[in-house]
């Protein structure tokens, strides 16, 4: 018995050690970003783990060097509208799939699965020419419209709705409520965790995504945060790049998602687990 307990203690100790090492490895790039953002020019590529003099002014310089606030506003506006649109279209579609009996649902669900697998990287040429025919390139419209409907959103909402008892909806119908009122007053309030998950995952996904904004916009005024970040390397590339300012800018770009993640971690975890287990 004694050896068993000893072995268990050792296993736990070993687990802690492995986890701590890997956590340190995970955090190192972030630490290095902050360290470099605070470093004076001379210390950027030095072997010093922590700069001798901290230059907080780097953040101010980076903030004024580029209109970060404009980029952030572009990102926030487009992403919030995308999330709102997806929430609306997905809730309606999922409600229809789960609670209304009609023919052709299997086909519709198959279509959703199909749409989920198609990445923008494979379809950007037709979407670009379509939007450019309507003179929408370099507008918020180009950034928002392609994502107003989301197969993933429908899929996730459907999963959340499936756990709501059908009897409840049936009872409301017998009481004479129409489908719209059932959705708004009964189903949505019971699906709050799913909604929170969708909102957070969606927002972070679109805030982070580079590919489509890179293609759909090319003016400074329309730049979103990831595109602005990518310009550090493609435009100021080479020796002239001031790494401490680039890293300060990187910190600005990352802070919003990190805050969202820390506040809503529960929902991120649920989102990942929900998609992998059920469905």
């Amino acid at each position: 018995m004694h050896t068993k307990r000893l072995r268990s203690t050792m296993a736990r100790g070993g687990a802690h050690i492995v986890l701590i090492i890997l956590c340190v490895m995970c955090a190192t790039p972030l630490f290095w970003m902050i360290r470099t953002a605070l470093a004076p020019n001379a210390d950027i590529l030095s072997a010093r783990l922590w700069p001798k003099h901290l230059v907080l002014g780097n953040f101010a310089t980076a903030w004024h060097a580029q209109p970060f606030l404009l980029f952030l506003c572009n990102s926030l506006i487009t992403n919030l509208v995308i999330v709102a649109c997806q929430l609306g279209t997905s809730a309606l579609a999922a409600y229809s799939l789960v609670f209304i009996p009609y023919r052709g649902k299997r086909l519709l669900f198959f279509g959703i699965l199909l749409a989920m697998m198609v990445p923008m990287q494979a379809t950007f040429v037709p979407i670009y020419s379509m939007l450019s025919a309507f003179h929408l390139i370099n507008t918020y419209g180009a950034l928002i419209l392609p994502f107003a409907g989301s197969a993933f959103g429908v899929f996730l909402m459907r999963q959340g709705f499936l756990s709501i008892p059908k009897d409840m909806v049936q009872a409301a119908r017998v009481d004479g409520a129409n489908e719209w009122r059932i959705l708004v007053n009964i189903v949505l309030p019971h699906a709050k965790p799913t909604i929170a998950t969708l909102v957070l995952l969606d927002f972070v996904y679109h805030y982070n995504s580079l590919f489509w904004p890179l293609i759909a916009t090319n003016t400074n005024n329309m730049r979103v945060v990831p595109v602005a970040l990518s310009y550090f390397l493609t435009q100021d590339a080479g020796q002239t790049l001031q790494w401490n300012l680039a890293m300060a800018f990187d910190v600005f770009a990352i802070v919003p998602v990190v805050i969202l993640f820390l506040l809503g971690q529960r929902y991120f975890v649920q989102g990942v687990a929900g998609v992998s287990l059920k469905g």
Partner: protein
Amino acid sequence: MSRALTGVLASQPRVRRQIARQIQSSTQGWFMMLPALAFLTLFVFIPMAYVVYLSMFQSNLLTPKPRFVGWENYIHLLTAPDFAQALTNTAVLAAGMLLLSLPLALILAMLVNMRLWGTRVYRTVLFGPYVIPLVGSGLMFTLLFNTDGGLVNRIVEIFGGQPIDWLGGRRSALAAVLILSVWQYTGYYMLVFLAGLQNVPQHLRESCQVDGGGRWSTLRHVTLPAMAPTVFFAIVICLIQTFQTFDQVYVMTAGGPDGASTTLAYYIFEKGFQMYDIGTSSAASVVLLAMLALLTWLQVYMRYRWVGEES
């Protein structure tokens, strides 16, 4: 049912009301489906079909009017060394993710599942990289991999090595992209595995231990078999994600040096957006779509077998 009988039935008020209700609910169902369906049709289904159409034509800056060429673009892809290179690079990345990221994620999930003190903190830190924009982490890793004075080369120097031109080397550029991907995604797969582990019925594990099974044999004979669907799901998702690798390459290496780190998605972007070679780009898109379709089908099929009809 004969037509006469149907007619008789339809004339019954009760049946008529039922049919009316069916039609009404069917209209309502499609109506609520409409917004999502319209956007998906416009921005997913039509573009997907149109890409297949475009892949049969040749158009570029020199010949702005598209010319029908049939299978020629695909034949060109089969023989183009740069496409073969892009496919190989994507396969290497995928293999690297499967062999490095997934096993590491499984081990981490088991460690995090041990109910240790501080598990929440571990989980947060390990999952954290997943929510950071790839462009942002790409920028960080470009600095870490900097030839003179980047942290990675400093560590190489400590061990007595010579500084390596990571992002400029033919092999090391792709390795750098892989390392970033492992850093970015391992926490995500850890959560996927963790969810799977927490779904393994506790009584199975206990009964194995009662029968004298040790930690190791419980793991081998109970936990891992019960995890099979989750592991399969993780493999498929990992492949799907890796096939779409773009941001890392765009930021860190721009596909270079000389195509050594060009992935399939980057190839499509380069051909279509930078060289205006729409035919080749579209044909490569169709190849990507076909690979993703195969994986999606496999996943749906296997899930159907494991979980059953209503899921």
